């Protein structure tokens, strides 16, 4: 699903150049649930931004579902994001004046899906995250965990190839974190490919594979025995 070869990225800081990613090689197969771990400054967010086409790499190859991702202009990047990727952010990033259902339907709007189908799909995915009854509520009327579940429903709505979650539990307490991870595991069980960036070991243990980044290189890449989250819920 994802093939990355010899990926480099550096940022210019005045006269100095900060080499953030120093040759990353890694592949993700369909249906994997991968945790990307590392301390701050390890390059994990940069890697996720490049995977999410929010940032460009300096050199190296990136293929997503067989499509080479390079030399994207803004418009093309937006189309690819919409088609291939679903995002889940640490601070949820719901649009605060839109109801839960409208938030979930937004990526479908950008896919030019008809309004009726949009509505149906939005409710379907809200149902999947257990928030069907909250469809008409504004984000301000939801708890943190509920907001993140709406965000996950929104990421799923576009039926992306890969779900990218950037610290999805970073703003949540541990009980709510496990609820969210339970949801992520269930979505993964249904066959979706998911990448989770986290620095919490217990969250990483709930994935099927952990990729450890340090100073811009992968220092460890191992498959693990998944810890199911539902036992904590």
């Amino acid at each position, binding site marked *: 699903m994802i093939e990355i070869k010899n990926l480099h990225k550096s940022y210019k800081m005045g006269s100095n150049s900060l080499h953030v990613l120093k040759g990353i090689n890694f592949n993700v197969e369909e249906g994997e649930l991968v945790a990307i771990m590392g301390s701050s400054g390890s390059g994990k967010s940069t890697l996720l931004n490049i995977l999410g086409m*929010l940032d460009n790499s300096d050199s190296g190859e990136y293929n997503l579902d067989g499509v080479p991702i390079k030399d994207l202009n803004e*418009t093309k990047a*937006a189309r690819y994001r*919409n088609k291939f990727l679903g995002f889940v952010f640490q*601070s949820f*990033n719901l649009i605060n*004046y839109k109801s839960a259902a409208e938030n979930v339907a937004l990526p479908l*709007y*950008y896919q030019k899906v008809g309004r009726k189908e949009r509505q149906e799909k939005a409710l379907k995915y809200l149902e999947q995250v257990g928030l069907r009854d909250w469809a008409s509520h504004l984000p301000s009327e939801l708890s943190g965990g509920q907001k993140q579940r709406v965000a996950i429903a929104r990421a799923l709505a*576009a039926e992306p190839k890969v779900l990218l979650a950037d610290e999805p539990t970073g703003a949540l307490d541990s009980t709510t974190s496990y609820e969210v991870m339970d949801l992520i595991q269930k979505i993964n069980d249904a066959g979706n490919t998911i990448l989770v960036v986290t620095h919490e070991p217990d969250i990483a243990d709930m994935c099927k594979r952990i990729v450890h980044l340090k100073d811009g290189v992968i220092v460890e890449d191992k498959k693990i025995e998944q810890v199911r989250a539902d036992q904590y819920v």
Partner: protein
Amino acid sequence: MWIFDRDLWSEIFNTLGKNMLRTILTMLGVIFAMIILMLLLGSANGMSNGFDKLFAGTASNSLFVWSQRTSEPYKGFERGRRISFKLEDAEIIKKQVPEIEVLAPRIELGSHRNVVTVYRKGRKSGSSVYGDYPEIDNITKKKLIAGRFLNKNDIESSKKVCVIGEETVKFLFDKGDEAIGEDIRINGVFFTVVGIYKPNNNINIDGKNAVFIPFTTFQKAFNSGDRLGWMAIAVKEDIKVPVVEEKIKKILKAKYDIHPNDPRAIGSFDMSEIFNNISSFTTVLKGVSFFVGIFTLLAGVIAISNILLITVKERTKEIGVRRALGATPRIVKRQILLEAIVLTTFAGLIGFAISVGALVGIGALAEGSEAPFVNPMVSIVQFGASFLLMIFLSVLIGLLPANRAIKIKPIEALREE
């Protein structure tokens, strides 16, 4: 066509509708600007209409010519010679100046602007008495409240009839008395009243208290021979009055041996001159109010742009999220631009509705007053032009925040604080 895309519009109206306070505050500037523009234009129109009403009934392209004393010696004549026009002059001029539409010779009893005492059964009135042709009615229209005006038949058979003013009736008759058919006495001659006129609330060269009798009757009754007092002339449409004025004066100067450069011998009054002055005044007024209004509108639209610019900054995160979810820069740009246009349009329409209401109110207030201010309202063309200009400005100025919005990179917008 994206313009018919229901989702696009509902997206825009949702965004605007769910931020009501911000939307209303943004619109205020344009609402007030539109009100100012429309009130200015409407008032200018009201003034223009008021002046039009003032002139209604007087042919604006008319000219009055009378004789005076010479001020230059010429061909052996000394200066200070009194010139007196004859009735034949009217015929000569009519024949030689084809630009003339109507020429009505007129004579006044006594000297000009002096009144003559008119009697009826022991009552009297100091009135102006004119000998007239029916054509005069085409130049200074009289509003008849009873009976008829002089006609051709009166002239041909020199009938002893007269048309008198409302004011004259008040002096000569008791209230409620029928004046038509009654006789009045002027210089010992009796005339039968056939019509009563009412002066318009406008420019009135005849006065309120006047008696009109047929020209031919005047000649016989008061023994004026072929003298004539002055000529009231209406020129044909599209012809400049001063040109005709010059032609007439040239003919008359030649006929009466007046020095060609004598400025005093022949007096004339060009009605079109005042009319043109006033109409150019109202045109300038309209132009100035449009100018002032448009700049006010520009300020209003800039205010919208300004607030949208702040809004874009405030919505950085939202726009970033939209971009991450697949909104192309084009879609974002279109959304912000359309928000600006929709805001401006709505604000413009609200301002227009308010100002139309205000203008109707002002018009009703001005109804009873003497001021030259009638029906202050903007024309469809004026409204359309200002509206289109406003939309055009909003597009132009909406581009500013729209371009700011597309510069937002999703990665910057989503960066955690």
